[in-house]
């Protein structure tokens, strides 16, 4: 199968243009982060995945980082390009609003994910465990305390260095977000 695919690509070299290379390079970064996160997950399977309802929670929890920090990076990039946000002036209403909103959204969505997992757990699997509500809330707070400032400073740094943060922040947020999410879930387990 692999040989057939390699032969196909060889005969269709015109497909490998700038667009193809850009998609491939960003995806490789994103996948690398996913594999690191998956390895941590595999090592701590017994502590994490065997908790009833954890697999209901996990996809949404991993996705949340990209949805919140990714959107924040995109908003900041637009503001930077428009000149509404200045990379050297960080104490502004727009930046404070963005950081505050992202953190508040993370807490609310984590709680929502916990509640959904709790209800599915109870209704479908028949397991009653309040812990599944608190784990994502604590983990969400830890992960976002790392991820939101990291996204913010990297976006400003990239812009200052003359790069377009829109091209880099997507894969950056998904790859670092996966790792911080899994580690913060483990930390939340230890705390609770």
């Amino acid at each position, binding site marked *: 199968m692999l040989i057939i695919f390699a032969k196909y690509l060889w005969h269709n070299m015109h*497909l490998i243009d700038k667009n193809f290379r850009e998609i*491939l390079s960003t995806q490789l970064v994103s996948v690398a982060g996913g*594999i690191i996160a998956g390895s941590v*997950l595999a090592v701590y399977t017994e502590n994490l995945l065997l908790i009833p309802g954890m697999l209901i929670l996990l996809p949404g929890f991993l996705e949340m980082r990209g949805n919140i920090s990714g*959107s924040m990076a995109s908003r900041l990039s*637009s503001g930077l390009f428009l000149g509404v946000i200045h990379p050297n002036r960080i104490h502004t209403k727009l930046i404070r609003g963005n950081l505050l909103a992202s953190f508040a*959204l993370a807490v609310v969505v984590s709680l929502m994910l916990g509640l959904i997992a709790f209800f599915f757990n109870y209704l479908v699997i028949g397991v009653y465990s309040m812990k599944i509500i608190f784990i994502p809330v604590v983990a969400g707070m830890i992960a976002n305390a790392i991820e939101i400032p990291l996204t913010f400073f990297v976006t400003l740094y990239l812009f200052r260095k003359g790069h377009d943060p829109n091209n880099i922040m997507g894969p950056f947020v998904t790859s670092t977000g996966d790792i911080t999410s899994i580690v913060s879930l483990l930390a939340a387990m230890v705390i609770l």
Partner: protein
Amino acid sequence: MKDVRSKLLKLQKLKKHEYHHFIHKIHKRHNISKRTLFYVKEYGQHTHVSRTIIKESIKVLFFASIISSLGGLAIEQIKTVFVSIMPLVILLPALNDMIGDYGTIISSKFSTLLYENKVNRKWWKEGLIKRLFLQVVSVALITTVLSTMAAFVISSLSKNAVSLDVAYKVFLIAIIDVVALVSVLFLVAILAGTIIYRKKEDPSNFLIPITTSVADFGNMLILAMLVMAFF
């Protein structure tokens, strides 16, 4: 330049929900895109920035949470088998990211093609669409092969090596999952995008949430079905 700046400052002072002829005027006279003007007005002086962001994002995030959790529920049903195959556990976050990203790429590229009037009614005959599909599928296959290989290596390094038979099944599961979902996402983006565009709405605002939700839910569902079928 001074003239534009003063107009933009005036635009910022407008109330958020107030339409003003200014937007059209600045857009026409100074060739500033309506999106830029929208941003200037959206986060103007009368706006509570965090409240605006929360209000506009919360519904989509709630919807995405429910969809993702439904997908997770499918995997939870086959948990015992799933966690016993270490390469699949390692691959889970990577597959989740990958498919979500392809949803975003397909949506944004297709929206651009729509705006550039490069999509006819017979879209399946369109060279650009065929090319985009082949490019995304090719990248998806390359990244899937590489990530599956990495998962096997990590798994064997941690003394959880899988047999050739299991490795072959995991490899097939990953490939079928990714190719099936990229094809579904393509169809969803084209059908939904065309309908939205015909209704004179901006496809970019709808396609990304639609395709990422389909990707999230579909990935978990197809993965669960394939694991049940193969193991």
